[in-house]
């Protein structure tokens, strides 16, 4: 069963790019945590003239980022972010990486320590097709983009949009902007949480300190 989580890099990164780029002002200092091959940073640097930095775990990703002229360090995001001083950045981006973190709650706090704002996008496990898959098959969904079985996936902490909003509340994090993205890539308001959590394939949030 093919469930579209909208984090399929080839086809869906454009949505992430555009939506995230729209949230970041010209010339901002930006850190992309888990920046992959640097595509988003490269885009932001060219389109928004940002001061771009990245952290990436895979040596291949770092190599490709370096070849784009980006400043990217190889390392574990949860460890490396600790070594940045407070307020080092205007925006810290965590794009489709939250679910791979050892402690998603701690990383959110770290994002907002080193950055004034955080932009976080994540696949929504409350999406109706995921729910249906689990209900009908009784098995964890495996998709094109999330193509590994539950015991081998780096995505160890899935959440729904509602879970994410609850966590932000618990951590006293201010949600400045929030939206869900449906399978066609259109923005959906989260005014009606039940609908957003059912039809959104991913959540996209701008967070700030309270």
């Amino acid at each position, binding site marked *: 069963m093919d469930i579209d989580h909208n984090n399929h890099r080839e086809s869906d990164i454009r949505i992430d790019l555009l939506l995230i780029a729209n949230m970041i002002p010209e010339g901002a200092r930006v850190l992309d945590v888990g920046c992959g091959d640097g595509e988003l940073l490269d885009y932001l*640097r060219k389109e928004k003239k940002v001061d771009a*930095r990245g952290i990436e775990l895979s*040596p291949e990703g*770092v*190599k490709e*980022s*370096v*070849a*784009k*002229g*980006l*400043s*990217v*360090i*190889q*390392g574990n995001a949860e460890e*490396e972010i600790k*070594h*940045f*001083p407070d307020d*080092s950045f205007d925006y810290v981006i965590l794009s489709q990486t939250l679910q791979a973190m050892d402690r998603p709650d701690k990383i959110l706090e770290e994002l907002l320590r080193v950055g004034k704002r955080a932009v976080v996008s994540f696949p929504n496990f409350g999406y109706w097709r995921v729910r249906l898959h689990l209900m009908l098959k009784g098995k964890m969904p495996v998709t094109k983009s999330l193509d590994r079985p539950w015991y081998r996936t780096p995505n160890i902490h899935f959440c729904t949009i509602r879970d994410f909003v609850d966590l932000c509340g618990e951590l006293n994090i201010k949600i400045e902007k929030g939206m869900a993205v449906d399978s066609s890539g259109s923005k959906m308001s989260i005014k009606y949480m039940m609908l957003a959590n059912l039809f959104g394939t991913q959540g996209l949030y701008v967070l700030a300190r309270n």
Partner: protein
Amino acid sequence: MDTEKQQIQVDEGFAEVVTLGENDPLLLSSGEFLSPFKVAYKSWGVLNKDKSNAILVCHALTGDQYARGKNPLTGKEGWWPKVIGPGLPIDTNKFFVICTNVLGSCSGSSGPMEINPATNKPYGLDFPVITIADMVSAQVRLIDHFGIDKLYSVIGGSMGGMQVLHWAVDHGERVKTAIPIASTWRHSAQNIAFHEVGRQAIMADPNWQSGRYYEKETRPHAGLSVARMAAHITYMSERSLMSKFGRNLQDREKLTFGFDADFQVESYLRYQGISFVDRFDANSYLYITRATDYYDISARFGGSLTKAFEGTAVRFCIISFTSDWLYTTQENRELVRALNAAGAQVSFVEIDMDKGHDSFLLDCPEMFNIIEGFLAADSEGT
């Protein structure tokens, strides 16, 4: 310059020894002055009109200026033939590449083996103790001599990387990018300890003669050879020693119950030691190991590595190797974190290679790609 001459410079390079500081003595870290002093270098490629395409390559402890092409002293191929050259990561079609023999060494630059102009005899231990910062000061003078205002990049492995970091910290306004490879930000107690073993081996050799062996028939070859053997172990990983030699015996079927080189690894180390003494001066070994032991880039900044790099405009690309236990990934991470804390532009890659510290001198396509990508991306004016 005609195109034929240009092509020769791109392919084969140009070697020279220049005398500097005749009217302007070089102030050393020790407070002493050196004047005049010689810098032996080799260059490849052609310096462009606005002198903006120069890359300085810094050699390691016992390296020399012959990074590419035949070394006239040893007859052997240079030490970085796959990195420097036309179409290679440091592209001599594009860049003017300079490699200098460091101060204190023995391939033509001023050092203990060279003639002291004050006495007309070899310096020996009268040569002042130098530091990595002093090596770099001498390189700065050479760059001045070329009329180069700002280097496009400074790059080097091991002790070469230490020079790279001194360039960035002491002369940051004259460097655009810096690539320290398999290096460190200060010598650790363990690093100093290994070097001390080497120095003691040299000084315990009766032929050393308190450094005044140049006028004698014999040289402290036994001591220097042992120093090299001890150091060479630190350049390799346990795994590479084991996979290369294991417990294999050397040209024999069984143990001899004596102290001959029964094992291949012994024979290999002895060979490393013996072949080294033909190309390196024992006193130079003392001076250069001392320079690396004195090396601590944070020392001038109250021990704060972050302060050392505060406000730097240099772009860094730092490379370490998983199996390097001499200058570890951990130490490189400390450097990277300090650079990040200082707000510097820094990239960092740890290359998975099991050959130990010397990986940077070996065939490592991953390293080649990163150097090439970093230099190329920057030259596009990003």
